[in-house]
């Protein structure tokens, strides 16, 4: 495989976990910029042009709920998990742990299964 494909494939790999990472930080209400900073602090930097539309899409799907707050100056839209979102987060977390364990086994010894 050409090495030029590596960044695109790495991006695709990251894209798969963006939703789970986002949900993990929305058990308490957060607005977009604050959420992005929180994710970046954990080493999961997500482009702003990707994260903010994602929040709206997840809200449209009923995974998140939101409200406008103006108590800190400029009006900000705060997002938090809905009941469906909490169930989805639990389910995705289990899926992630399963995948993580499976990938751990697959990648043990540099990806060779020893046979």
């Amino acid at each position: 495989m050409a090495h030029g494909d590596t960044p695109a494939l790495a991006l695709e790999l990251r894209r798969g976990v963006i939703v789970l990472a986002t949900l993990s930080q929305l058990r308490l209400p957060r607005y977009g910029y604050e959420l992005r900073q929180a994710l970046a602090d954990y080493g999961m930097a997500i482009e702003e042009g990707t994260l903010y539309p994602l929040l709206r899409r997840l809200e449209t799907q009923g995974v998140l709920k939101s409200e406008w707050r103006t108590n800190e100056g400029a009006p900000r839209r705060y997002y938090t998990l809905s009941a469906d979102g909490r169930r989805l987060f639990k389910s995705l977390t289990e899926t992630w742990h399963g995948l993580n364990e499976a990938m751990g086994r697959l990648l043990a010894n540099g990806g060779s299964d020893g046979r």
Partner: protein
Amino acid sequence: MGDPMDVDALIDVYIRDVVQLLPRKQRQDVALELRGLLHEELQGRAASLRRTLDANIALDGLRAFGKPQDVAARYYEPWIIIPPTETRRFTFAALIGALVLMALSPLIAAPARSGQLALLMLAWLGALVSYFAIRSFIARRGTGENLWVPRENDRVSRAGSMAIIAMICIGIVAYGAPGWLFSRFSHGRLLPALLAYDPAFQSTRLPVLFFLWVCQAVLLAVLVIRGRWNPVLRRVDVSLEIAVGLVLIWFQGAGSVFKEVASNKVALSAISAVALLLFIDAGVKLYRDVNRIPPPDEFRSETS
């Protein structure tokens, strides 16, 4: 050259370019949220550079945010008229249609030819876009409900084939003995002179068409018995279809079909249209045959 835009103006223009691509009901809400977020993002960007936010930093930040088209597409699931997997098929159909229309352009009267041809090509493209849009709309509405249904390309509809055999038989009688058929259904009245064949056409050219129709009926009978197509039968089918098309072209150039001039004109126009349809159909069949994925050898031996 006008004054360069300031930070607020750049943000406003960017937001305008994004939200005008969104569904109307989302625009105001997204614009309000995006304005606040972009201000914070750009302030953060300037702070990380240890500078005060200015138009240059804002422009770089907005470009990093993404092209408005890309950002807008992330806010909702846009309706795609021609899905990427259909683009090749659309292009092919548009090209073939344009070539057919160009080939037929000599039939258009000379003074208005180029204008008419352009209109016909636009109409063809419009029809294609509408067709793909309807398909895409149906697929979008049916998400999760329209399960894939396996269709065997080689399986023959026996009822359909028998119906076509019947139609060929009726066609041979109707075209071969129209006077007899007309008198049977009109209590013994004679066929109008308007529908009297040219003698040369009836005695020499029409039997050739009937011979090919009989061959097609035999092919269909074989298919009814076998129940499946195979490569040889497909080639025979396309060959017969092309042969019928060529015979119809021969009818065009070899003389009159009917004695009456008016009837003859209508008949020749209809024959041209049918020949065109036959060639298009044969072309599609050949194209599909070329693009056919061959079955594994063992499966091929079972089906041939």
